[in-house]
């Protein structure tokens, strides 16, 4: 750098003041998780939060404010943050590694070796998954995380459906012992649960009962699946809706039951159709009770800038698309 700039009056090096640290707000999954974990941390002193300069956006600004001594700023250096969390866990602390989903991908190999292979009690909590990210565009819209983290041995993978489930997830992940990946969400989200909801690792949850087809969804697609079941009902189709927030371990028993009882499955996720929830459901069906399955998700392409609802329309994630997939799956029964 040209050293002259150091000495310019009002220049770039002399004029920087510490800004007021702000945080997001609103009814989003990230906010709800941030409040949930902060609430828990007042009782559980072993909880520490790691951040890579995105706490304002991940909802962890609540924790930063309440527990500055247990908030570990790691800078924009996710690889070190991820492996470092393994070291903290080795001393008995419970590190919550927080970042945007796409930046967690940057440190997948650290999560694999220093958290999963070592069986560390570390929780990776990723906000900003999928097209739900919206205007920031494809570089920030993580459509691969469920597939990638699911493929790591010993890694539990969760995706909260709404703010109430994201809030509840805080307690569930802290009680759980072992490496875990949790997806929250960026944009204001519809609620499907009341505030008393409890999340259970390894269990799917039937939100709407039905006989003709089962829609198995996670994340923001759960609310859209519920909406799709209403559209289908108007046409006399009885669709069951399952929130499969536990992608690994997967509730194979419930999937098999739904396959037997409804004879057709639709998976719906804000993720690539390859390898995520849809892939996991297909594996379970093939090994238990194969029935037709249709995949709602992003069809192996990158997203682009736009509002989340516009993107859902463009990439085929809306209730309308889910209901059409359900019709298709029903048509394929017995063929």
């Amino acid at each position, binding site marked *: 750098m040209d050293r002259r700039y150091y000495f310019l009056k009002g220049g770039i090096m002399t004029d920087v003041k510490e800004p007021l640290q702000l945080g997001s707000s609103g009814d989003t999954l990230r906010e709800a998780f941030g409040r949930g974990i902060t609430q828990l941390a007042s009782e559980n002193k072993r909880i520490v939060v790691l951040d890579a300069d995105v706490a304002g956006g991940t909802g962890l600004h609540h924790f930063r404010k309440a527990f500055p001594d247990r908030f570990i700023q790691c800078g924009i250096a996710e*690889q070190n943050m991820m492996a470092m*969390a393994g070291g*903290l866990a080795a001393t008995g602390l419970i590190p919550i590694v927080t970042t945007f989903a796409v930046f967690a991908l940057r440190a997948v190999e650290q999560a694999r070796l220093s958290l999963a292979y070592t069986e560390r009690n570390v929780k990776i909590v990723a906000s900003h998954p999928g097209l739900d990210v919206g205007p920031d565009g494809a570089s920030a819209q993580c459509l691969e995380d469920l597939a990638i983290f699911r493929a790591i041995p010993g890694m539990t993978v969760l995706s909260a459906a709404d703010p109430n489930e994201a809030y509840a997830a805080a307690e569930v992940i802290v009680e759980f012992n072992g490496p875990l990946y949790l997806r929250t969400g960026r944009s204001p989200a519809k609620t499907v649960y009341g505030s008393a909801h409890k999340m259970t690792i390894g269990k799917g949850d039937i939100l709407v009962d039905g006989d003709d087809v089962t829609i198995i969804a996670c994340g923001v697609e759960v609310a859209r699946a519920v909406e799709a079941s209403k559209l289908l009902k108007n046409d006399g189709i009885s669709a069951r809706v399952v929130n499969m927030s536990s992608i690994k371990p997967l509730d194979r028993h419930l999937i098999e039951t739904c396959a037997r009882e409804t004879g057709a499955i639709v998976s719906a996720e804000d993720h690539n159709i390859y390898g995520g929830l849809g892939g996991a459901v297909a594996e379970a069906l093939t090994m238990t009770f194969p029935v037709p399955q249709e995949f709602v998700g992003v069809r192996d392409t990158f997203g682009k800038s736009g509002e989340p609802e516009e993107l859902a329309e463009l990439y085929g994630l809306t209730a309308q698309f889910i209901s059409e997939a359900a019709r298709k799956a029903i048509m394929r029964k017995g063929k």
Partner: protein
Amino acid sequence: MNPNDIAVLARQIRRYALLSIHSATSGHPGGALSCSDILAVLYGNELGSQDKDVPASERNRFIMSKGHACPALYAAWAATKLINPQELTTLRHLAGRLEGHPHVGATPLAETSTGSLGQGISVACGIALGARMQGWSNRVYALLGDGEMQEGEVWEALMFANHHKLGNLCAIIDYNKLQSDNTNAKIMGLEPLQDKLRAFGWNVTEIDGHNLNEIAGGFDQARKDTSSPTIILAHTRKGQGVSFMVGKPNWHGSLLLTDEDFTKSLIELGVHETETPAWIDGTIFSKVAL
């Protein structure tokens, strides 16, 4: 241990490391030999007791960030009786627990699992910070390879440790100037390394990594100045102790250690000619009192 004992320990680490590599028929001798003296000082004196009954808050931790050199680590454990020396003949064997790269799940003494360069120093940062947050008195050590310094994660960790002033952390660079395919200078130059490390805010001590007094002196200095983390830049020779391996990149890991190579190495490491067959077939552990 007194200096003579440390020298004996270092020689034993070299013999043991080669024995395990020979019996595994694969492994990384060059980088194991270059860090044997450092490991001797660590396990002989600096780390103190590694027994399980030492409270977590007091036990010093060592992480082999350059995980491929683990034959020297396992050898150091064996030579200080932390594991049964007989176990060295099971390196990389399916039925054994001495994995090809250190794995904490198999051998808790490893503290973490390494073998992917750059991660061990990050884990060491985490242990050092976790220890400090809980008011522990122990210290944390990590040994890095010079080739490892090319990993971006290492520099993230260096920045982190300085920012958080982890004075209970000491890193050692086994600076043997060679990496898998060629010299550091040819692959991706590291110099001026000391300047870079200082610019990252660490205390830096440059030593001869085969001089036991200088190694111990480096650790002394690290313990004295805990205002910042310390890095010991240890100048070493790859293959040190075995003349035909010194300075040869091929001995990083791609050459098979034949019976003949192993015999020649053992003689250079002070084993009597008549004893070498027992080292080759592994019966040395039942023949001599250890």
